């Protein structure tokens, strides 16, 4: 009951960001796909010339969702930043940590409510919209070759990167160090995870990188939150 009440409170506080992310992604994604008219595909494939070798650049095709991808990634990062700052930085500057922590409930419950809010936010706002856009792009009326199956997984990996950013921001907010020392190191670590993920083609390996990154950040966030003097 206490957990549900905390969850509702966190969701209420993060709702503007979650709704804004969903709306932005839906609008921008719909606009990107709107311009992929059925006739456009006629011009997207190079007309090959008889008796010539085909350049390999002419046969590498982007999917209908390739314009949506950068916005999905940026909105996921922005959502991670927004929820992370809202949950772990605002209370510090407004000096309301005491109010958040000193409740008839354990710190673990408070932390679980925050993280659950973030997970729900990513799944509902960005995740569901991504699934909707992928489904729409798979319709033959939009693009007669459906997007490859791996693109659906890649979209979710980009969303997971946003969650990694959220954990990095949370850890930076909980750190008691000075900003010019190691307070922002968690964000540097998030950058390392980005580098590792964007340099591989094996989805299972990228998933492992993300999992290791999330585990490392989550362990520290949990330990800091449970033991720190606010």
């Amino acid at each position: 009951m206490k957990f549900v009440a905390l969850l509702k409170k966190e969701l209420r506080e993060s709702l503007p960001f979650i709704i804004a992310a969903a709306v932005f992604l839906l609008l921008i994604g719909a606009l990107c796909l709107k311009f992929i008219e059925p006739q456009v595909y006629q011009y997207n494939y190079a007309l090959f010339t008889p008796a010539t070798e085909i350049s390999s650049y002419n046969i590498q095709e982007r999917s209908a969702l390739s314009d949506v991808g950068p916005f999905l990634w940026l909105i996921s990062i922005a959502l991670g930043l927004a929820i992370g700052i809202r949950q772990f930085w605002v209370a510090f500057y407004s000096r309301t940590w005491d109010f958040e922590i000193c409740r008839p409930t354990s710190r673990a419950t408070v932390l679980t409510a925050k993280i659950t809010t973030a997970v729900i936010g990513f799944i509902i706002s960005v995740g569901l919209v991504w699934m909707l856009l992928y489904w729409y792009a798979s319709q033959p009326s939009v693009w007669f070759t459906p997007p490859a199956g791996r693109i659906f997984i890649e979209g979710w990996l980009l969303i997971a990167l946003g969650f990694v950013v959220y954990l990095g921001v949370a850890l930076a907010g909980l750190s008691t160090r000075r900003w010019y020392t190691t307070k922002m190191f968690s964000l540097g670590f998030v950058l390392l995870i980005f580098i590792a993920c964007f340099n591989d083609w094996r989805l299972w390996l990228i998933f492992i990188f993300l999992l290791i990154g999330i585990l490392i950040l989550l362990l520290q966030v949990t330990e800091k939150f449970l033991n720190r003097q606010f």
Partner: protein
Amino acid sequence: MKNNLFLKYGSSISKVLMVLLIMLLVVAIAQAIIAEVSMAFVMRRTCPVRPIEDEITRIKESPKCFMTDGTVHQLLYEENNYHQKDDERKISIYDANDKHIWQGLRKNIPYEYLSWPRQTYSSTFERWRLYGMMTLQPDFSRSIEFPVRQNGEIKIIWRYLPEKEYFIAYDLTGGIAGYICANGFTEQKAEVEGLGKFERFIAWCPKGSNNPVMLWQTDKKVYQIDFQKQIVDTIFQGDKVIESVSFKNWQFTENEDANDIKYRPAVLLETIDGNRHLIMRQPDQIFTFAPPADWNLQEQNITLTATEGNIYLLRSYHGPRLPEEYKYSEKLVEQWIQSIRNKPRDRWEELYIVNETGELNLVNRYEWTIPSYKVEYSGLGFIDKVKFFVTDFSPPVYNILWHGLNKYWPSSIAGSENESIFKLCVVLIRELHARQDILNWSVSFIFVLIALWHGYSRRTNWPTLIMWLVVVALFNLAGFLTYWALNHTQLIKCPVCGKKRHLEQSKCIRCGSDLPLPKSKPTDLIFT
């Protein structure tokens, strides 16, 4: 309780790992910047001293061309003007006795030379490029797709599925129109069998068609796939891995005059065992050549070509290659280059005809000698000194990994076909590992002493301090920065024993006394 311990130690290890990775990256970036900036100021001084420049250039660099009767000529381009069309370039021809016999534009050469299969790098799509396309990117991965048109309109799109290793076709309604796989074309997914691990392909449009045909090479097979006719032709299937593929007249016949040599369409494959397989058409034939055991393939090139009358084999000796074990030592590489160039080098080429029984008949052999020329190195230049200096601050772990394990690393990790974070790490270690082991360990030892001096008063227990000293020893500057970032705390003087102690522990590490309490102030009475 167990959960608390897991959380405590797990969090500590995660924190150290996180900060260490960041510090390693920061130190690596600083080292790279210093090394690269130094190059902007100084050029490496290497002075090849060559007597009789023109003669050496002509002997060394002019291609040796054979005619069908074995006559050999040397061709020398007079100008290095690469913007000019090849046919418009001026060329001089010398015979086997070094006598100048002809001069003019390339397109007017009165002789007909044998030409050999070639690799078409610009239009060959290799596996590493496929991986590059599949790499996670914000705008998602791309796929290989071939359109098939009728009357100028797209009817079907063939897409390659890298995970499944076959092609799938989509028609205009978005439905699946079929599959192209090792079993050929099929409409049933249950009959699909993967083509095999992709290596490379080359695609072209035949004459009179703008629909693609491709030669698809896997590790042990070569297929010819015609998307319009939906035909898969297995033109080669072996039990050894194919290393290279080159073509002669296979895609379409090159421009030929009536007097030109008529070549049969051919694909030349080289497998990992050194065998050459010449796959020919008109008529269909496969000729496999296994080089004799005494042919040193490390120092020779072998190629084949097929005309309408004969199959020719060209064997060229290009000299010794750099030994594999020298590859990662600049000093050994320089010594090897100097030892090679400081003496005359013999070269030769042999032309053979393959008879009906598959045996080789020597047609002609041409030998020449490249005179020695001295290459003076200025020794360790400024750039090398800077590089040696910055790598003294690299972690000794890099050297342990590089020297101790590099022979166990598969070559594919550092190759261009494997773009991944692991390759980045290998390149980082290769470039930044210390060149001077003793100095590297000495610098590391100095940082250990500094860490010991800093941490002695701040220690909470000896095992933790020793663990940190080991980290500093193994990771040098990055390890010391990690230690400092996570362990720098304020010191005070213990009021009991007078020694330095830090505030993070309630009891003094030396005398065991508690932290001093603040002095009490008189209470302000505001109400009585």
